[in-house]
């Protein structure tokens, strides 16, 4: 019996050992064969992907002046596990930050997604070169800290903030949508930086290293077989004339409004001013968020790009369009004359100012007679062949849209608005079906009513007239270096539905308006040696003083610039918008100003208080 128990025990002990070892083997089986995650963890452990950031492409103006370049900045990184006790006050002093921010920094880094105490986390972003110079010498005193070079945008002329846009760090949303971007990458957020992000950013490279547990680089992975070099971003040449842009911003100082100038032969944007503007440097680097918030909270909305996003009624400038549509539809001829006794007499009537009567087509444009275009507009809508108001209106709308109104022109900038050209449906809803006629919507004849156009569309109108009937989609970029050319959509002519011969009469009218002596509405815009053609307008503003509008192009026979100027709350087009446009044209074509008094008057004009009053 006793013997039996002892032999049993031999087997029990062997059994116990066997069971324990089988447990080990099962666990190893789970770990090494069933579970896959450890293999992934292993490569994450060992491989460190260090992105190689390419320099972002530079931006030049049409004459080769640099308008955006890169400036070195440095991100201070920290590897938490390598930090040893250090003098926080000393570091704070070097970085020119309060000492508490050091302590806070260590708390903040842990909140970042993907934080690991074994990998570098951004401790302080975008240290200036000046601070970096000091820090670099003392960095050895702060083990665990390292500096990664980055680039920030810089603007030698501090102009064209709206147009250029700005660069910022990618957020979670961008990262989730586009796998190219990783935490800490920069991306163009607005303006050209956004629309040419792909060209400007270049292609990130990556160097893969093997690291040990202390994150010390042990060498390149597979001798750099899987590394890729960064491709520098492409430089961009804009159609913008930096001098003109700067001059336009100066002219618009202390005024609200917009200037858009286009080269009619190409559709290149020469200047695009939205006022009030802001210094693009404000939206660079560490202070970007703070400054952005300040700008955003400003009641004058300096961030808002009025050139593309502000909808104004076109005012009297729109008479040109109605005149052209009328001629195309054969309801008005160059010789057609209408009398005007202070206004259009039918219905509620439309008033007119004092001018000779009766007027021919050209004269009507020169003197901007409301009455004349009321007749023209009604003749189009009520043209018997259409059979109904609706058909007539639809035909008119089709013509109007061929000028680029009521649709996006397709400029290479984000956030362009399409503007408003009302539709039959709109009026059917606004009144009722059959409840409206040409008289009800008569204000369209003088560019008021339910029309909404952007300054860009108005500049495009000037370009259409300058070209006698066609336009190129306006675009900012002239050339992306290292590519075959710009987007083909910018070299495609868009013809209006109006025969080019009719444009000559309009051009004559616009010439007369500026240079025609008595009765001309825009005599102030005339230049001694250059034949400027222009048309004033006053956009009715239900909220306050009317907006001053002027469109023009010059020279008359070989147009090199087409321009639209809007000055909010500035009253008649001739008072502010026409002289500003004229100075712009003079600046662009002669590179000098022969009328210093006028220039001074415009520079010093302060119209912001009018804006304030209306509130």
């Amino acid at each position, binding site marked *: 019996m006793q013997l039996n128990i002892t032999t049993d025990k031999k087997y029990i002990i062997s059994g116990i*050992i*066997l069971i324990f070892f089988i447990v080990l083997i099962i666990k*190893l*089986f789970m770990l*090494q*064969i069933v579970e896959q995650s*450890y293999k992934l963890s292993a490569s994450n*452990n060992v491989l460190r992907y260090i992105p190689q950031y390419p320099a972002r492409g530079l931006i030049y103006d049409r004459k080769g002046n640099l308008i955006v370049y890169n400036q070195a900045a440095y991100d201070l990184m920290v590897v938490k596990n390598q930090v040893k006790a250090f003098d926080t006050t000393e570091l704070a002093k070097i970085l020119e930050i309060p000492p508490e921010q050091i302590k806070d920094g260590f708390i903040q880094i842990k909140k970042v997604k993907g934080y690991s105490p074994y990998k570098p986390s951004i401790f302080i972003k975008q240290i200036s070169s000046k601070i970096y110079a000091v820090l670099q010498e003392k960095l050895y005193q702060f083990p665990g800290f390292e500096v990664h070079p980055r680039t920030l945008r810089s603007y030698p002329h501090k102009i064209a903030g709206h147009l250029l846009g700005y660069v910022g760090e990618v957020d979670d949303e961008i990262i989730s949508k586009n796998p190219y971007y990783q935490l800490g990458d920069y991306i163009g957020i607005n303006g050209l930086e956004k629309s040419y992000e792909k060209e400007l950013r270049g292609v990130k490279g990556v160097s893969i290293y093997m690291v040990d*547990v202390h994150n010390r680089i*042990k060498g390149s992975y597979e001798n750099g077989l899987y590394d890729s070099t960064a491709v520098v971003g492409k430089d961009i040449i804009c159609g913008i004339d930096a001098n003109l842009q700067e001059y336009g911003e100066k002219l618009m100082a202390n005024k609200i409004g917009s200037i858009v100038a286009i080269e009619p032969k190409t559709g290149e944007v020469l200047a695009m001013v939205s006022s009030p503007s802001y210094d693009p440097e404000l939206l660079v680097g560490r202070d970007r968020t703070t400054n952005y918030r300040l700008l955003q909270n400003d009641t004058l909305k300096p961030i808002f790009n009025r050139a593309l996003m502000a909808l104004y009624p076109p005012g009297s400038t729109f008479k040109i369009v109605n005149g052209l549509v009328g001629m195309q539809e054969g309801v008005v001829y160059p010789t057609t004359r209408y009398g005007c006794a202070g206004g259009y007499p039918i219905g509620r009537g439309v008033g007119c100012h004092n001018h000779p009567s009766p007027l021919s087509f050209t004269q009507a444009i020169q003197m901007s007679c409301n009455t004349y275009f009321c007749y023209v507009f009604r003749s189009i809508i009520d043209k018997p062949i259409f059979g109904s108001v609706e058909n007539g209106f639809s035909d008119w709308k089709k013509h109007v849209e061929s000028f680029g109104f009521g649709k996006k022109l397709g400029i290479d900038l984000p956030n362009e608005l399409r503007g408003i050209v009302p539709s039959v449906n709109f009026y059917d809803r606004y009144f009722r079906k059959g409840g409206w006629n040409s008289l009800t919507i008569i204000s369209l004849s003088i560019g008021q009513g339910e029309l909404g156009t952007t300054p860009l569309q108005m500049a495009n109108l000037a370009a259409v007239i300058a070209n006698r009937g066609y336009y190129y989609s306006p675009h900012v970029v002239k050339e992306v270096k290292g590519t075959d050319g710009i987007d083909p959509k910018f070299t495609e002519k868009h013809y209006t539905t109006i025969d080019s011969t009719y444009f000559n009469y309009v051009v004559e009218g616009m010439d007369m308006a500026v240079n025609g002596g008595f009765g001309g509405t825009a005599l102030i815009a005339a230049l001694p040696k250059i034949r400027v053609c222009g048309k004033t307008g006053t956009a009715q503003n239900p909220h306050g003083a009317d907006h001053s509008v002027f469109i023009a192009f010059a020279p008359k026979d070989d147009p090199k610039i087409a321009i639209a100027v809007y000055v909010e709350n500035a009253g008649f087009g001739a008072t502010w918008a026409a002289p500003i446009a004229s100075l712009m044209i003079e600046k662009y074509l002669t590179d000098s100003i022969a009328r210093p008094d006028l220039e001074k008057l415009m520079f010093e004009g302060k119209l912001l208080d009018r804006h304030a009053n209306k509130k």
Partner: protein
Amino acid sequence: MQTRNSSWRGFDWITIFIYLALVFMGWLNIYAAVYSDAHSSILDFTQRYGMQLIWIVFALILALFVLLIDRRVYFVFAYLFYALAIVLLIVALLFGKVVNGAHSWLQIGSAGIQPAEFAKFATALAIAKLTNVYNFKILQPKSLLQIGFILFLPAIIILLQNDTGSAMVYAALILVLYREGLPNWIMLYFVLIVILFILVIIFSNATVLIFVFGLTMLLFAIFGNRLKEMLIYTLASTIIGIVLYYSIRYTGYSLSTTYIVLIAITIGIPVALIYAFFRRIRLIYYLSLFLIMNTAFTLSVDYIYHNVLATHQQKRINDLLGIEDDTQGWGYNVNQSKIAIGSGGFFGKGYLQGTQTKYNFVPEQSTDFIFCTVGEEWGFIGSLVVISLFLILLLRLIMIAERQREAFSRIYGYGVVSIIFFHVFVNIGMTIGLFPVIGIPLPFFSYGGSSLWAFTILLFIFIKLDSSRLG
């Protein structure tokens, strides 16, 4: 009587071969763990693999020496070895060098030794000698006291050295005692104690006490066949507990649930004992003792865990039991070790191709975590080979132990089996997250002279004893 010379054939060459294979594989893995392009020469003595080569040569000389000595030396001087080991342990405790928080190193010239490693075979010899006495009855109080003394003395000194892992090894010698007559129920109780230990750490005191109470009641119902009395007693105790709880709350004081359970037990036991006395139920006496012992054990484990153990030890235990999941902090060691082994897959990454161990992601990779290199570079196959070698070695040693005529040799053999088994299971177990990281080496594998020599001596004394069994 055979002479020494003729005993060469008597050596168990299978065991010796497995030993050599393990030592060689260990060295290969130390080379792989430390390997870097800068130091690739095998004989670079500034590197650990170079040093280990020296340790191995010494170990082989030691083994030869152990085999050549007269076998009677181990029997006659068993207590002397033991006494020497104890003295060295005390010296190390008092004057030793602190390595990894443990006062366990004795500096001799430029080299250091760990007496704790050598105390293992000395203790095994001492136990063998003690129980070898003719007609030794393990269950006599005097025997238990002697055994307890021999086991606890080195264990306590090692604990004082702050080397918990090495101290726990002595608990493994219960296998020897089991083989030598410790009844099954004591083994079972031992298992219960281990379970209680884990429960105390995971759950609250009160929960474990209620578990202990419930277990006692269950045993009463099963062995005493007294379900009715058990239910009445349980109900009464529960009511006492509930009444206590609410009456104390009513007075506005608060008392932890642990105390309420304790009070209920304290009231309950005398009542049960009086009942037992009148009804003459002996089982109740035993169960009362059982309940008191387990309660005391629970409370002391809780006390030790929260007031005696250092934070890092608590953390390691917590981490293993899944109470805390902190892969970058305290769980880091185990996590990195699991990543290394797990990334090895079926066939491994190939010799010297391991990235996790090579780039130091695994801590202590040439000593306590040497198995990571095996797992990463040799994969599941390699791990299986190594574990199988150890398993074959252990089963072989049991076989050898059982063929001994003398109790001394057999008992010593089981001592060798227990010690190696504990080391292998705990060491590999901790690298794959089955056991807390308590820092004990993998026999014959891990880097370090003391450990290698101590295991060599441990094993070869047994081979020597076996070789002369016929004599």
